[in-house]
């Protein structure tokens, strides 16, 4: 795959869509051939972003659609964008997780955004044209 080719997936706000997302990321990775650690990171980062939208984005109980795009931005960088028309919400503003806390003190939750930030070099949120646009970039090492 050459830089610039962009893959788009449309998802419904239903956790049953997660296997389709995983297959989409795998297909992209099969074409781009990043290392195994990059493949896992992309799977994880996108699951976290998409799960947030599905679980918290829409409060009306109705079915909605939103999109995920994956793009090899240049030879060593993947750019993922999740775009949804749910209520404005910037997940990146979540307070950081205290990874040093003991089992008793450790809060359950917040780890999705933590992993999203740790596994990317660049994470950016904006509200654009009535939509939430979350951009996540990861430097990858291509194996072939």
């Amino acid at each position: 795959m050459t830089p610039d080719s962009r893959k788009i997936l449309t998802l419904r706000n239903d956790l049953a869509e997660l296997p389709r997302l995983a297959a989409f990321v795998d297909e992209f990775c099969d074409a781009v051939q990043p290392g195994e650690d990059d493949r896992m990171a992309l799977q994880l980062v996108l699951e976290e972003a998409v799960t947030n939208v599905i679980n918290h984005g829409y409060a009306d109980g109705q079915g909605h659609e939103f999109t995920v795009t994956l793009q090899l931005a240049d030879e060593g960088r993947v750019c993922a964008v999740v775009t949804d028309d749910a209520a404005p919400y910037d997940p990146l503003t979540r307070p950081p997780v205290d990874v040093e806390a003991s089992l008793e003190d450790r809060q359950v939750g917040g780890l999705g955004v933590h992993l999203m930030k740790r596994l990317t070099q660049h994470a950016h949120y904006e509200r654009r044209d009535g939509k939430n646009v979350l951009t996540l970039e990861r430097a990858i090492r291509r194996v072939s």
Partner: protein
Amino acid sequence: MDITENIQNSATVLGLTGRLDGLTSGTLERKVDALLAGGAKRIVFDCGQLLYVSSAGLRVFLSSAKKLKAAGGSAAFAALTPAVREVFELSGFTTMLEIHPDAAAATAAKA
């Protein structure tokens, strides 16, 4: 994800295979809650065949460890695959949770 269950040294060993994600984590949570309701005090999560875990899975691991501790028991995690170990390390789980090289070591260890 598939979950197997067996008893070793009076510990319940849950063998996890596949992906523990936002879709499958609820199954594991219900399993752990049922074991707790049945009086289980020691649960070992055998992760030798667990290829992927996301925050939804980590959440169940963490809440299981908390619930067991509150019930006077404990949770242990065994045979982490490289992918799962990386996520555990990024999340601070390797220092917070009890981790063993394999399920046998986890069931032999003093809880």
